[in-house]
């Protein structure tokens, strides 16, 4: 049948007036599932943030003030697990759900029911994990990396945490499979891979990383489980195993995992900067190849997390140089963002502010990462607050700032109303000032020798800790402003309705559908001009 008028087959009798349960619990609609993901991750961001507030309150002054050390350790462990698996990863999957089909001109994700399963596993997984806090012996307290033998010595929580992580992994793998199938199979006719917007590109590569490493994490924690409950000796030297082996397997997952959390952030920022610079993305293809290079390199650098465990010298050298190589494609990206802005006609709406904040502060995190990559220097920095400062710069001012940028950028598309720009700008400036107050002094603390994951510290570290805690409280409170902005935008409080193309300089198929995006979009494959794509005409 050679017809141009294709239509969507909806195999249902009540798609046009779905009941509440049908829509939010049994749904297959990518926008609804995306909304669920985003709301879930926001809830987890607040829970994980509350844990961070407890940590910073305890560290406000030297000495033990508020919580006992055991609970403090549970907080650091849970804060990490909640933020990584509950806040950042689901938030990016939520953005992918909402935006990927809109950006590539597809009616929905490729496997919509699997999509719903991916989401619904998560609340149950976190129910299991968070419930351990109320069990006898409390939650996991050995750090989110669950290193043996320490993690094997904790109480009843271990089995629950391991199974919860298994569920999160399952959810991620299914989500990743769905994204790959969507990007490779559902693109509108004429949208070649190298014409595709950059956010789907970064997510495609991220999805490969997820499928490559989440099963390895599952294997690692399964071995922990059998070591604890079924007498195996994987991580027990007396039986011929090696605790360091766990670290190798864990970080084979763990290092790509950090790119899983940052590559989609690169994608979001690469969408936003061209819009508010009113220029196509500089070096589109270089961006794609740089993303792919970073993804490849992420598989061969894992042992830089464990320079001090006593690896052979050859291993340390290899992992040092491989790690430093990552700076090359990352540098390509940073320079391309800057070049995109160069001579553009810039405006500084909230998404752009967050995106620029991302570029500047993520680069700071990147540079401290480069410092940590140097083996002899790492011997000094390892397990100090310098590491904490480093990964919070890339994760908070990196990933989270990109998420905020994305949320402000697409909120009008989701709700049909403009958010409150004044409050958005307040949110940005308060976040930026306080987050630097929070994490920058931690560099100094680390260099001066303050170890991470301790509830008490030498009195010499008092001043910087107090500054850091004040920054933490401020940053935490500023996020409540974000919650209010999102709520008021969803309720249409601003009263400013937006058109299809919310931002003057925005390009891409998502801006050709109405705002708010109707429940079903692109039920027929869209026709488009290459110049409408996010990075402009790729032919020149």
């Amino acid at each position, binding site marked *: *049948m050679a017809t141009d008028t*294709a239509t*969507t*087959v909806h*195999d*249902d009798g009540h798609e046009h007036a779905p009941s509440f349960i049908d*829509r939010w*619990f049994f749904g297959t609609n990518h926008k609804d599932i995306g909304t669920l993901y985003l709301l879930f991750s926001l809830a987890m961001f607040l829970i994980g943030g509350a844990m961070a507030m407890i940590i910073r309150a305890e560290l406000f002054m030297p000495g033990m003030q508020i919580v006992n050390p055991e609970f403090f350790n549970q907080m650091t462990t849970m804060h990490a697990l909640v933020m990584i698996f509950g806040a950042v990863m689901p938030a990016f999957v939520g953005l992918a759900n909402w935006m990927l089909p809109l950006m590539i001109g*597809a*009616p*929905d994700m*490729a496997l*919509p*029911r699997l999509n719903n*399963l991916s989401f*619904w*596993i998560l609340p*149950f997984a976190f*129910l299991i994990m968070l419930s351990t806090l109320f069990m006898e012996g409390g939650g996991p307290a050995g750090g989110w990396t669950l290193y043996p033998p320490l993690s094997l010595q904790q109480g009843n929580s271990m*089995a*629950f945490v391991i*199974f919860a992580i298994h*569920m999160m992994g*399952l959810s991620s793998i299914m989500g990743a*499979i*769905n994204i*790959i*199938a*969507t990007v490779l*199979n*559902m693109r509108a006719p004429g949208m070649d891979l190298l014409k595709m917007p950059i956010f789907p590109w970064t997510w495609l590569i991220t999805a490969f990383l997820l*499928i490559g*490493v989440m*099963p*390895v994490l*599952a*294997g*690692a924690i*399964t*071995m922990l489980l*059998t070591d604890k409950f*079924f*007498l*195996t*000796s*994987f991580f*027990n*030297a007396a*039986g*011929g*195993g*090696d605790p*360091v*082996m766990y670290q*190798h*397997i864990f970080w*084979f997952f763990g290092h790509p995992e950090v790119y899983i959390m940052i590559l989609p952030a690169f994608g979001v920022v690469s969408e936003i900067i061209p819009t508010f610079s009113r220029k196509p993305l500089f070096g589109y293809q270089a961006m794609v190849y740089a993303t792919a290079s970073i993804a490849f390199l992420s598989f061969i650098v894992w042992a830089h997390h464990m320079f001090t465990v006593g690896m052979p010298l050859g291993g340390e050298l290899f992992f040092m140089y491989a790690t430093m190589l990552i700076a090359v494609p990352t540098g390509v990206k940073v320079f391309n963002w800057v070049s995109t802005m160069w001579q553009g006609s810039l405006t500084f709406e909230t998404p752009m502010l967050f995106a620029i904040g991302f570029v500047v502060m993520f680069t700071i995190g990147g540079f401290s990462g480069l410092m940590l990559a140097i083996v002899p220097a790492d011997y000094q920095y390892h397990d100090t607050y310098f590491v904490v400062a480093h990964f919070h710069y890339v994760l908070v001012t990196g990933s989270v700032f990109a998420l905020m940028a994305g949320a402000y950028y697409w909120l009008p598309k989701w709700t049909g109303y403009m958010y409150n720009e004044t409050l958005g700008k307040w949110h940005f400036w308060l976040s930026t000032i306080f987050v630097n107050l929070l994490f920058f002094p931690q560099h100094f603390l680390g260099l001066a020798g303050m170890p991470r994951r301790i509830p008490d510290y030498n009195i010499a570290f008092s001043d910087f800790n107090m500054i850091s805690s004040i920054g933490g409280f401020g940053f935490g409170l500023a996020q409540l402003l974000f919650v209010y902005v999102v709520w008021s935008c969803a309720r249409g409080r601003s009263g400013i309705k937006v058109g299809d193309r919310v931002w003057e300089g925005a390009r891409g198929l998502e801006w050709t559908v109405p705002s708010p995006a109707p429940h*079903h979009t*692109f039920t027929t*494959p869209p026709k488009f001009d290459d110049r409408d794509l996010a990075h402009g005409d790729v032919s020149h």
Partner: protein
Amino acid sequence: MANPAPDPGIYYVPHSSKWPLVGSIGLFLMLAGFANLMNGNKTLGMPMTFAGIAVILVMFWGWFRNVISESVRGLYNRQVDFSFRMGMIWFIFSEIMFFAAFFGALFYARVLSVPWLGGIGDGELTNIYIWSGFEAAWPTSGPEQVGGEYGLIGAWGIPLLNTMLLLASGVTLTIAHHALKAGQRTQVLIWLGATIALGAIFLYFQMYEYVHAYRDLNLTLGSGVYGSTFFMLTGFHGVHVTLGTIMLIVIWFRCLKGHFSKDDHFGFEAVAWYWHFVDVVWLILFIFVYVL
């Protein structure tokens, strides 16, 4: 799918379904129940685990029944078919990476950690001060001989036989596939049945070997790093063969019902891919766990 594929220009979006949520609840009950069991809480753990398993089985039954009926009604087009293929391919890839973690543990122990404990390379001081007198060798249950003395299972007995069985099952499955493409349903049922039988015999021998290992050889999960890697690798493989066999049985009944046509039988192909994957994992396992 009995009908010809609809126009690929038509998008297909499936209707809402309760099965994903049911599956999540089942997974929650099963795993939370299992965690309770491990901590010794049988009163809560037992009912939760079994309820969870039951819910998951019901979920698989209902979900697949739903998809099969939609497929038979001809609702799916080539694009949906391709999405399903991508789903299966990348699911199998994730399984490969899961096995890779355990093979990684095996290689790490054999190539690095055991020699280090024996004082080779960087491990000289470790050996002198902590594990004095331990000589690296494989297989080993470590310097403290965790789990006590144990015997080994030779590669050229049952394991070789099992290798032959699985290789043969790959051949019979391929013959069945060719028969399906030629439209000879009786042949399909015979050769697919043979594949199932070979899988079942494999599983029988595998269980026989486990009983032998535990009862006669004192080779258990607790036999140091050798026992750990041996049983975790062969055990997870066995679980996958069991799953694969169940999938083959389902496909056999679907063939009997005439769900598959000459050129449209993705369900069959997906199971065949899975079976070959299990086959290949066994070959690697045979070489590195039994032979070398």
